[in-house]
């Protein structure tokens, strides 16, 4: 049997390891689903195991570009994707892999690939889905950078995005064309307060046999799990709440494993032999994680936006406290939104956690633990007062990010949504008087006092 055994060792998982189930199914009945661990447990444990050589309990930062092959045949098998293993950190890295499995688990997905940023993850998703000349639909209520990526840069690659007003889900159905290959939405949208009717949009995507992609950055899997409602792909900017401390850029693309890529020949990139991989057919070979394999071994391999192992480490550490942090982010955001709602200088507040919000019912359905901590409001003093407020606050940081421990403030029209036309800005909820907040984890009374003093300064002529 000598010739079958070119691997020098194998890793044996100890006998008493539990599957993802607290109550092993004794009957041997094939139909029972195991009871899952809670999200707090998964946020800490999913993907990570003590390191076999040293016993290191926390996931080490594997700060290496490359990995020694066992022999020439092992190298060839790895390059052919005939076996699993590490070649080069542009493709896979042990620290990044732990993060990938963790986000896949938290989202209830089958597999994930991480990327250098949220935008890079979006690129990996669309490069794996589309051919030049293809089209897709996107909600207009998006992070401004995504509107620019889809509307301008993707166009140069021959990928055409049609933007849709999501307030009536049927608008997606009306906008569908035969060349549409996907629908992209943010269920809880940046910059603020808008919640989409996920279930209705899932139904439209299913009718059209195209995948629904959800950017779940602002909600996080703690507040909303779009795959439980039928979403097929999820993208994240892990830069935000997942890493959570404003330390590390990153992105993730997660696949549910439930989309049938072969159904009507719409996705030849998945179902036909790939010339970029010696004629391998990804769906047939890798089944329910074929999309992730393709995104990694073609898009990530050939364009190279990999996540660094150090950023993966910071992000893993951040995720361990995601449930705790999100509860506090939400609690603080509710108090700040209520305070602003009752403030004499404030004209309007758009936060789906407020009972007065037109999105409150949708928020209760899709975000039962809270409507996040990113939202917008406008001052009676309009644009001028808004700019002054942004410059007058002392605890809130004036910067272009969300999902930090620190509270953040921004005027989207002049920053994140600057590249858009006036109409696009209005449609995206980033008109001239809009101020965006990302509520952090500070003492909430300090946040209220800071906004109060900022608004009184903004009110002075």
């Amino acid at each position, binding site marked *: *049997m000598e*010739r*079958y*055994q*070119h*691997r*020098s*060792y*194998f*890793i*044996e*998982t*100890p006998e008493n*390891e539990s*599957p993802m189930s607290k109550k*092993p*199914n004794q009957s*041997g009945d*094939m*139909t*029972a*689903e195991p009871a899952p661990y809670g999200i707090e*447990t998964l946020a800490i444990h999913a*993907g990570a*195991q*003590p390191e*076999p050589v040293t*016993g290191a309990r926390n996931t080490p930062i594997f700060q290496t570009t490359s990995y020694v092959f066992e022999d020439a045949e092992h190298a060839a*098998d790895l390059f052919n*994707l*005939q*076996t*699993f*293993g590490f070649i080069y950190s542009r493709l*896979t890295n042990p620290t*990044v*892999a732990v993060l*990938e*499995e963790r986000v*896949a*688990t938290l989202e209830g997905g*089958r*597999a*994930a*690939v*991480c990327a250098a940023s949220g935008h890079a993850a979006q690129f990996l998703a669309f490069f794996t889905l589309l051919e030049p000349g293809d089209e897709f639909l996107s909600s207009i209520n998006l992070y401004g950078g995504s509107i620019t990526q889809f509307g301008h840069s993707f166009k140069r690659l021959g990928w055409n995005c049609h933007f849709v007003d999501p307030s009536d889900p049927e608008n997606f159905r009306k906008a569908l064309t035969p060349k549409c290959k996907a629908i992209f939405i943010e269920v809880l949208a940046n910059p603020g307060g808008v919640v989409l009717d996920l279930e209705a949009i899932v139904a439209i995507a299913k009718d059209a046999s195209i995948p629904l992609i959800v950017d779940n950055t602002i909600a996080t899997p703690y507040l909303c799990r779009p795959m439980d409602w039928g979403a097929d792909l999820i993208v994240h900017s892990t830069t935000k709440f997942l890493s959570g401390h404003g330390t590390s850029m990153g992105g993730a693309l997660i696949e549910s494993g*439930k989309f*049938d890529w*072969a*159904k009507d020949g719409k996705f030849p990139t998945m179902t036909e032999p790939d010339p970029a991989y010696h*004629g*391998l*057919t990804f*769906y*047939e*070979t*890798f*089944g329910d*994680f074929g999309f*992730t394999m393709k995104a990694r071994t073609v898009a990530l391999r050939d364009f190279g936006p990999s996540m660094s192992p150090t950023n993966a480490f910071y992000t893993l550490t951040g995720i361990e406290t995601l449930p705790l942090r999100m509860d506090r982010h939400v609690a603080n955001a509710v108090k700040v939104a209520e305070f602003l709602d009752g403030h004499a200088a404030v004209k309007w507040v758009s936060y789906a956690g407020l009972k007065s919000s037109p999105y409150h019912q949708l928020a209760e359905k899709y975000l039962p633990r809270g409507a996040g901590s990113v939202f917008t409001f406008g001052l009676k003093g309009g644009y001028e007062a808004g700019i002054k407020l942004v410059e007058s606050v002392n605890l809130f940081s004036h910067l272009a990010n969300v999902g930090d421990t620190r509270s953040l403030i921004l005027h989207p029209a002049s920053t994140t949504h600057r590249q858009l036309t006036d109409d696009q800005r209005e449609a995206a909820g980033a008109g001239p008087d809009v101020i965006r907040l990302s509520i952090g984890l500070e003492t909430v009374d300090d946040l209220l006092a800071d906004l109060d003093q900022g608004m009184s300064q903004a009110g002075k002529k």
Partner: protein
Amino acid sequence: MSPQPAPPSTETPLHYEDALLRRILKEVKTIAMVGASANWVRPSNFAMKYLQGKGYRVIPVNPGQQGEEILGEMTYANLADIPDQFDMVDIFRASNAAGAIADEAIAVADEKSIKVVWMQLGVRNDAAAERLEEAGLITIMNHCPKIEYGRLFGELRWSGINTGLISSKRPRMRAQ
């Protein structure tokens, strides 16, 4: 590794205990792979090569390749023609072909000492499974032994795949 991606099934979902899969993969030594392809980019060839690398002997069964070698192993037209004993049959054929192969396995089970019949990812035939179980054969459907081996023995998660495994235990490195 699937011969044909199956449409999302409306049948009852399948769930097998990890302990059962792990036991099968540890105890089985020799696998007859029905539908093994000589074409090296086909999923069956990938799976065969991987399983060989893990120390299994894989005997290809494929009437079109009868008498030829695949990955160093002689190919046979059917299970009965295989001169040696084997513990497991891995079915790399469409679901509707799996019934006849299952019956073939039942017919030679004692003679060949077959204990397990495993249908690949995308292959499911509930009627065949019932006959196999009645004949005392452990039956797995709609799973890939390569993927399950990788999942249960720590390699699959290197590619960002959700293995569903949670453990605070230190994995042991064992020489083969």
